[in-house]
C-alpha cells in the first residue's frame, strides 16, 4: 500500500494585485506517494517552479492547501517551515547552488552543521556521501573551481547528506551538457531506488523526464496530464 507523502488540494497561486495580477497556478490537486520519482514538465512559465516551491515550503498558496505527511503547511509558522525544509527536504536548484566561499566538502557539511551534528559525525557522513557520488577527489576544492556538472553533484550530495524524505530538483540539467545530464539522471534514479527517497524534479528536458516514473504536465498553471512512465 502506498502512502501519500505530499498532497496538494485545489492549490492556486496569484502574484501581484489588480491589473498586474498573474495567475501562476489554478486549482491544482495532486498527490505524491512515498518513494516516487516524479517529473513536473511543461513549457517555460507554465508554473513548474511555482508548484515546486509550494511543495518545498518556500512559498504559500493563495488558495488551497499543501499537506506534508498529513500536516498542513499553511498552519505552520515560519520557523516550523524552516525546520521542515532543513530536516525533511533536500533542494537542488537550477543555478547558484553552492556557497562560493566553501569547499565541496564544506558545502555538503553545511546542512549537517545547521542540523547540529558533531564534527566527527559530520566528517564521516560527508565522506560517505561524496564517495557514493564519486566526488571524493574534489572534496577539498573550492566550489568556484568545480565544473557545472560537479557543482550539481555536490549540490545533490548536500541535499542527500541530511537524509531527507523528499528531494526537490528545479531544472537540475539547465546548465549541463547531455553527458552530464545523463549522469545526473542516473544519480537521481539511483538515489530514488537505493535510498527510497522521493524525488520531484521540475524540468522541460525530455531526457530528464524519461528517467522518472511519473510525469505531471502543466500548461498555464493547470495540470493537463498526469501519467506513469513505467
Amino acid at each position, binding site marked *: 500500500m502506498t502512502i501519500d507523502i505530499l498532497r496538494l488540494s485545489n492549490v492556486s497561486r496569484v502574484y501581484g494585485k489588480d491589473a498586474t495580477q498573474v495567475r501562476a497556478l489554478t486549482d491544482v490537486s495532486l498527490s505524491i506517494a512515498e518513494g516516487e520519482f516524479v517529473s513536473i514538465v511543461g513549457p517555460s512559465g507554465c508554473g513548474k517552479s511555482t508548484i515546486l516551491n509550494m511543495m518545498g515550503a518556500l512559498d504559500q498558496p493563495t488558495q488551497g492547501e499543501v499537506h506534508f505527511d498529513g500536516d498542513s503547511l499553511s498552519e505552520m509558522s515560519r520557523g516550523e517551515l524552516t525546520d521542515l*525544509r532543513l530536516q525533511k527536504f533536500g533542494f537542488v536548484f537550477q543555478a547558484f547552488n553552492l556557497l562560493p*566561499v566553501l569547499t565541496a566538502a564544506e558545502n555538503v557539511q553545511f546542512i*549537517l*552543521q545547521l542540523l*547540529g551534528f558533531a564534527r566527527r559525525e559530520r566528517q564521516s557522513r560527508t565522506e560517505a556521501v561524496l564517495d557514493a557520488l564519486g566526488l571524493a577527489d574534489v572534496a577539498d576544492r573550492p566550489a568556484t573551481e568545480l565544473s557545472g556538472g560537479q557543482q550539481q553533484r555536490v549540490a545533490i550530495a548536500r541535499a542527500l547528506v541530511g537524509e531527507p524524505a523528499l528531494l526537490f530538483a528545479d531544472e537540475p540539467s539547465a546548465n549541463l551538457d547531455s553527458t552530464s545530464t545523463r549522469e545526473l539522471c542516473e544519480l537521481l534514479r539511483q538515489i530514488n531506488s537505493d535510498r527510497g527517497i522521493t524525488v520531484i524534479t521540475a524540468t522541460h528536458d525530455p531526457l530528464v523526464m524519461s528517467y522518472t516514473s511519473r510525469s505531471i504536465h502543466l500548461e498555464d498553471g493547470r495540470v493537463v496530464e498526469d501519467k506513469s512512465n513505467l
Partner: protein
Amino acid sequence: MKQGLFSQFTLIFQLGVRNLWRQRRRNTILLVSVICAITGVVVLNSLIRGMQAQMVDQVVYNLNGHITLHAPDYRSDPAITRGFIEDSEAFTRKLESVKLAGWASRIKIPAVVMSERETRGVQIVALDPAQEHISIVADLPVEGTFLASSEDNRIVLGRALLTQLRTKIGHRIVVVMQDIDSKSIEVGFQIAGVYDSDSEGMEKHVVFVGKHTLQQFLGSESITELSLRFNTRLIPPDGLEAISKAFPNLEVVDWKNIDPILAFMYESVNAMVYIWLAIVFTALVFGLMNTFITAVLERTQEIGLCKSMGMKSSLVLYQVVTESLIIMLLGLIGGLLLSWGVLQLLGDGIDLSAFAAGVEMLNLAPKIRPAVVWQDINIVIVATIFLALVASLYPAIRAVRLDPLVALKD
C-alpha cells in the same frame, strides 16, 4: 543541544571569516580605518588625560596642596591678623584618620622687597623646610642654599625677581610688611639662594623665609595656612568632609576652589574625552554600516540559498553581526597595539616649551606626558563592541527579511 549550537556557531564563524577574506581589499581598508580611529582615540585621550593629570599635579604641587585651611576671612584679606594658632599635636591628632602624604603650616602674606636699586611687590611664604616634602619647594633647583630650618633668618628669591632687583646672592634686601598690630615693619634679610621654576610668575612673586623667624618679626605665633596633601592624585571621596569636620572653625578650600578656572578645565576635559570618542565612533558607524549593507546586497543569492535550505533567521542575523564583530575586534586589537607603540614613542612627553607662556597660563608642565586611564580603555572596548552590533544590526535585519525565493531569483 550544546553540541548543536557549537556546530552552528562554528559554521557562522567559518562563513564570516571566509566572506571577509573574499572582499579582503575592501575589508582591509575598513580594518585600517578602524585601527586608525581607535589609535587616534586612545592616543589623543591619553595625551588629554596626561594634560589633565599635570594640571592637577601642578596646582596641588605649587604650594597649595589638595586642601588648604585658613581663618574664615583670610582669603579676602591675607594678613597675619587673619591667622590662626599652630598646634602641631592637635593637627596631627585630627589628621591621623585621613590618609595624607603630609601637611605643612605656612604664613603667606603680601610684602614689598627692596634692593639697593629696585622695589617689587611679592608674596612672602614663611615655611618649615622639614614639612615641605609635599610641595614644589622640596624639588626646586636652588643656586646658593635653601633655608636650613624654620629658624633660618635668610631669604630665598626666584631668579626672575633677583634679576629685577638687580642684586646678588649674599646681598641683603629689605622686606616691608605689616605685623600683628597692622604696623609696617622693615626687616633686612640676606639672600641665601635663588630658585628656578617652570613658572616665571612664581619666580617673580614668591619669596621664602623661615616660618619661626617671620613669626618673631611679626610678633605672632600664628600661621595663615595649613596645607594638606593626600597620597592619591585626587581628593578621596570623603576627604573634604572629613577635614571640614576635623577643623570646624577654619575655612576648608580644596584645589578646585583655589583655582576654579583650572577646575572648570579639568571637568571640561572629561566631557571632551567622551565627545571626541562619540564623534569618531559615530563617523565610523556609518562607514561600517555602508560596508555591511553592500556585503548583504552582494550576497543576496547566497543568503537566499541558505534560508531556502533551512538556515534560521537568527543564524542569518548572527552571521552579519559576526562579520562586523570580527572586523571590529581585529581593529580593536590592532588599534590598541598601535596605540601602545605610539605611546611608547611619546613616553618622554611632547615638548611644549616653545609655547611657554600659554603652557604656564594653563598650569601645565612644559612637557605633556601621556597618561593611560584604564577606564577610558574599557570604554573604548565596550564602545567598539557596541558599535559593531549597532553598525551591523540594520544590514543584518535586511538580510533576515530577504525572501529566499526572491533572493534566489535576484
